[in-house]
């Protein structure tokens, strides 16, 4: 379990970090190369040691032959006792000469002819005669010079490679003997083991150095890539002025240069778009402003006519009244346009004060009462008794409420409209619920859009500007609050405004439900 988790974590790191991947690959490939190199070196050193030892053994064997000849030199072939004594002297004699400290000797009577005088077959203690196989003896007998073979001997319970060298020797009196010498290769074996250990250790150290250097090199290579990643992230998050440093003329510098070109053109494009957008916003604002002066003049003119409307004939009087009404509507539309253009230009200042939401709701209800009465709509307010304090711009919140109430009264088809106020630790809320015509899903999704009207064919009774809810939404957002809506066709709609109690609160839950109510 733990292992699999560690494995997964390691795999994740391996996949996510280019640098670690490069490091692992470099170390693995260099490791393989080092193993091959070490193997070749080890084999070739082993061979060298073996060959040197073999040659020396051959030279010593050659010399041993002369030693043996000298021992038997001038001996009478008939004095078999003396002959046998000398034969027995061969083994100690040969064991003690030469540089090889460990040399085993066997001096064996050849079976080419019978051994009538029972001459000895002396041999070193500790030499296992089974090493000297019959086939090897036959080979030795069949040729006059040295014959060699590699064998394994037991030494202190361990199997050690050794060289077995045999040669035929004819003693005075025509006795055929064979001289066998066994040279063990313990010191060569030890040397080879030492060399191998050194190779392994050296290999490991080399591998660590390679790992360290490849880490340095990959860091150096990956660094500009990481920088590019961080810079793109910063640019994406809006810091358009960020650029990569360009050093030298290598591929990284080319990357940095192209990256910076891309960022430049991106910045240029965004600036253009911003300019266009700013120009449009300013145009809307300028148009609205410019319209104000002639509108004021016309309004003053209309006011004078309106004050004297009874002096005119019926048609003229009605025309004056219509003109007067439309001036008001024009006025409201301009005010809303200006307000929304101010929001678009982010030119709205937050001027919040601690206020009682109950009071703001009360004021809004009082100001809309006459309109509700004219529609025969009962406003049913469910407001908590204590103060509902919240940091807000009371004018904007009053404007939102006025909008919500106007809409609810207009669409409630004469049924009561419910107004609720509530609070919890972090937020205050007010909801306006009507039991009127309601809205479908697509209407709900568009309700905060500018100049959107639920039903184009519907009669416009209040002459709203079509910007009311769009501005309300912006007003709520300015408070870091939420203006939400739910509705069901034929059942009604519910708008809920939730405001955090102060600007330090970022997470809050509305103390009121967002739900329609059935009649």
């Amino acid at each position, binding site marked *: 379990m733990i292992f699999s988790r560690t494995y997964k974590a390691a795999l994740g790191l391996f996949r996510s970090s280019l640098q670690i991947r490069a490091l692992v690959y470099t170390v693995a490939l260099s490791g393989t190369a080092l193993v091959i190199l070490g193997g070749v070196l080890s084999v070739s050193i082993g061979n060298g040691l073996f060959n040197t030892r073999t040659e020396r053994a051959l030279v010593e064997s050659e010399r041993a032959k002369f030693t043996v000849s000298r021992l038997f030199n001038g001996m009478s072939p008939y004095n078999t006792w003396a002959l046998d004594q000398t034969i027995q002297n061969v083994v100690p004699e040969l064991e003690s000469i030469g540089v090889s400290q460990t040399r085993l000797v066997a001096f064996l009577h050849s079976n080419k002819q019978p051994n009538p005088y029972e001459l000895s077959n002396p041999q070193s203690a500790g030499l296992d005669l089974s090493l000297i196989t019959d086939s090897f003896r036959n080979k030795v007998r069949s040729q006059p010079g040295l014959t060699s073979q590699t064998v394994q001997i037991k030494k202190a319970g361990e199997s050690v490679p050794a060289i077995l060298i045999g040669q035929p020797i004819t003693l005075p009196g025509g006795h055929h003997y064979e001289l066998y010498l066994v040279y063990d290769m313990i010191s060569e074996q030890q040397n080879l083991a030492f060399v191998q250990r050194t190779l392994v250790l050296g290999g490991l150290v080399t591998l660590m150095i390679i790992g360290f250097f490849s880490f340095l090199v990959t860091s150096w290579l990956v660094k500009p890539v990481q920088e590019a990643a961080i810079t793109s992230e910063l640019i994406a998050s809006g810091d358009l002025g960020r650029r990569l440093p360009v050093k030298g003329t290598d591929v990284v510098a080319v990357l940095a240069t192209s990256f910076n070109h891309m960022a430049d053109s991106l910045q240029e494009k965004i600036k253009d778009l911003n300019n266009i957008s700013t120009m449009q916003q300013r145009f809307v604002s300028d148009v609205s402003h410019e319209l*104000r002066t*002639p509108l004021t003049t016309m309004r*003053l003119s209309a*006011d*004078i006519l309106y004050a004297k409307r009874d002096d005119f004939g019926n048609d003229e009087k009605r025309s004056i009244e219509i003109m007067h009404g439309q001036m008001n509507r024009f006025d409201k539309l301009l005010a809303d346009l200006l307000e929304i253009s101010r929001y678009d230009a982010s030119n709205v200042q937050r*001027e919040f*004060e*601690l206020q009682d939401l109950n009071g703001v709701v009360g004021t809004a209800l009082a100001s809309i009462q006459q309109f509700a009465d004219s529609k025969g709509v009962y406003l049913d307010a469910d407001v908590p008794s204590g103060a509902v304090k919240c940091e807000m711009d009371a*004018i904007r919140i009053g404007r939102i409420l006025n909008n919500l109430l106007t809409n609810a009264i207009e669409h409630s088809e004469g049924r009561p409209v419910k107004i609720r106020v509530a609070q919890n630790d972090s937020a205050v809320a007010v909801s306006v619920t009507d039991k009127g015509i309601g809205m479908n899903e697509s209407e709900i999704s568009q309700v905060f859009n500018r100049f959107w009207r639920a039903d184009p064919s519907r009669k416009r009774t209040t002459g709203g500007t079509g910007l009311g809810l769009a501005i309300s939404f912006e007003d709520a957002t300015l408070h870091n609050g939420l203006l939400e809506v739910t509705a069901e066709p034929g059942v009604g709609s519910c708008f809920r405004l939730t405001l955090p109690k102060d600007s330090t609160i970022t997470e809050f839950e509305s103390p009121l439900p967002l739900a329609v109510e059935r009649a």
Partner: protein
Amino acid sequence: MSKLLIVEDDDALREQLEIGLRTHGFDVASVATGTDAIPAFEKLKPDLILLDLMLPGKNGIEICTEIRKTSGVPIIILTARTDDQDMIRGLEAGADDYVTKPYPIEVLVSRIKARLRPLTRVIENPIVKIGSVELDTLSHEVRKGEKKIALTPLEFKLLLTLASHPNEVYTREMLLEQVWEYTYKADTRLVNVHIQRLRSKIEDDQEDPKLVLTVRGWGYKAGPE
């Protein structure tokens, strides 16, 4: 008959304003540029000035500042720029009130009348004190110790309203209603700006007011002294 001076560069609007205000019983004179405003003010000595902010020659804010050096004559700014900054700067320069275009004539007339209405206070003691500041409700003179302080009629009314009921808190809305005579919602910054102007004239240290105090979350009150 009250004499009004209109400073407005738009010909049609100026003419229509003249007609409209004349039908409401005012004696109206007008100039079309900022440069003509000060000479006309000095020559005509109007009871009230209606001042457009965007003017050729000299802008409304400059005119306001200049007039306030010598006179407390009520000034109402007319602005198409609902850009708050312009309106606030106009108020800071000394204008008493503002009207945003487009406005119905009734609104303008009621604003004018509110500013022209004389202070009608009948109290036993004509001297009202707030700290070391004395308000003489008969001569409309204000003294701080021996020093005479020049307040505009509006500032006088504002200070008198607060000082008549020491330690009673006035919300901005109450002050708008009682001092400016607004019957509907108006921008409460009107109050903030004038409180600042008032403090700059009567307080020893404007940053640490002792006479006109802010009650956070509510409004203002006259100091405890």
